[in-house]
């Protein structure tokens, strides 16, 4: 399986308090990769590093087969980027923004740009400074899509948008992916949004990648278990115990990762009883994952 984005041993520091440490990340070609993490976890910094907007202290970044930052321009010509904050020149009109942006991308598709313009109901003559947040979000997405990129890097593209605009924007992305088989790297802290559209997920917290796995494994692998007569854990469990809470008496609630139905036999082997296996949605799994990650290591 080839990778659209491959990051190895990445280290970056900004100021005295924030750093990205030993980051390794792999985005399969053709996937929709959801990059999850709370605010301030390092998602935007990682995106800026992988686009060559920031320089790492060390580590390797390969995007679409090109080394970043050495082959940055060649890679950026094939990458559509929607940043967290609107980055276009506000003194231009929508039409002028089109003309400016299209001049830099040889693969720019005018026909499709016009179609998207109609679909998003944007006024060509309107100044960018007069656009609403939703209209600006749609324009940013339009510019990224109309360049027909092989890779779309979307940094919280729907943050602060109303549900209608959010749906429009995500629908346009999904349509594009279905046509082009492009790779999408989308960061968000809106877990439910990614749950519906992504097939891979990476979770970032405090500058480190906490987990990276296929979405179905993430969704299905994290469970809440009700256990009676729970044993002391010696570290030989077939799953990863993320948290463990005593309820009343001998009953405990465990949150585990890497769960498979056959593992229920393990409990009878250690003298415990598994009373219930409860599915967690992505958000609950995400919260439990972060909670475990943040417990100080002894």
């Amino acid at each position: 399986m080839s990778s659209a984005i491959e990051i190895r041993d990445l280290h970056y520091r900004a100021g005295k308090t924030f750093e990205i440490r030993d980051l390794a990340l792999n985005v399969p070609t053709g996937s929709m990769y959801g990059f999850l993490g709370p605010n301030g976890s390092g998602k935007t910094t990682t995106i800026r590093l992988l686009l060559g907007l920031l320089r790492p202290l060390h580590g390797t970044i390969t995007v679409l087969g090109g080394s970043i930052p050495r082959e940055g321009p060649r890679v950026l010509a094939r990458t559509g980027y929607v940043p967290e904050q609107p980055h276009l020149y506000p003194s231009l009109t929508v039409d002028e923004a089109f003309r400016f942006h299209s001049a830099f991308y040889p693969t720019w598709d005018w026909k499709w740009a016009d179609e998207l313009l109609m679909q998003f109901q944007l006024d060509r003559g309107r100044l960018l400074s007069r656009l609403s947040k939703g209209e600006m979000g749609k324009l940013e997405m339009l510019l990224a899509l109309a360049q027909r990129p092989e890779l779309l890097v979307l940094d919280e593209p729907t943050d602060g948008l109303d549900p209608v605009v959010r749906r429009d924007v995500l629908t346009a992305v999904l349509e594009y992916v279905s046509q082009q088989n492009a790779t999408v790297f989308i960061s968000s802290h809106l877990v439910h949004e990614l749950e519906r559209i992504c097939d891979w997920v990476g979770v970032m917290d405090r500058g480190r990648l906490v987990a990276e796995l296929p979405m179905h494994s993430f969704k299905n692998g994290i469970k809440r278990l009700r256990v009676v007569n729970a044993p002391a854990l010696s570290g030989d469990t077939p799953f990863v115990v993320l948290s463990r809470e005593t309820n009343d008496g001998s009953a405990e609630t465990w949150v585990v990762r890497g769960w498979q139905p056959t593992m229920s036999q393990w409990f009878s082997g250690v003298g415990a009883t598994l009373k219930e296996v409860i599915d967690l949605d992505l958000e609950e799994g995400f919260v439990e994952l972060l909670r475990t990650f943040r417990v100080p290591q002894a």
Partner: protein
Amino acid sequence: MFRAILYTQWKWSRLVILLATLAGFGLPLLSVQGARGPVGYWETRQLLGAVQGWGVLYPVLATAVALIVAMVAWAPDHRGRHVYALSLPLPRWHYALLRFAAGATLLAAPVVAVWLGGILATSMAAIPTGLHAYPTMLAVRFGLAVLVVYAIFFAISAGTVRTAGYFLGALFLVVAFEAIANAAGAEIHLFEKMMLLLIVWPGPFDVLTGRWMLIDV
């Protein structure tokens, strides 16, 4: 790509360019308005005085228009923290070069205006015997002054706020050191020497000093 960059820069600085072009065209005409009728010794002296007096405004105009165009070239990128510029698929030096070239192209308008204004003014004026018109040389000098000031301030405004802070901090330290040293009785003139380094040949701003004469001996 150049056309796209040129268009944005035109949109951001067109008012300044238009005003500078009008001023550049008008300055030579205003400087020779006294040279209409018969000319004697006193009229000749008056004409030279007027030309020299108006001539002070050429370096002022060159500095003002070049400074504003240089700052405007980077201002929108600064506001957007350069994210857009850096995410465009071209090397940074190439982008900076395109921005520089676009600004320099726009600045050609006031330079041409000074040249045309100079030709028109000197063709309409009654130039006394022994004096000569230098519209082309004046325009070349104006163009050089514009280019030098533009290049320097383009480079300065391309830097980050932190770089500007370091620059201003260093300047403040020099002035503070000089003030303290002079208060203690030492005769130190660091700031004056620095200024002389800039405005006396081979300093870059030497082009702005001296007499700017459309008509001279």
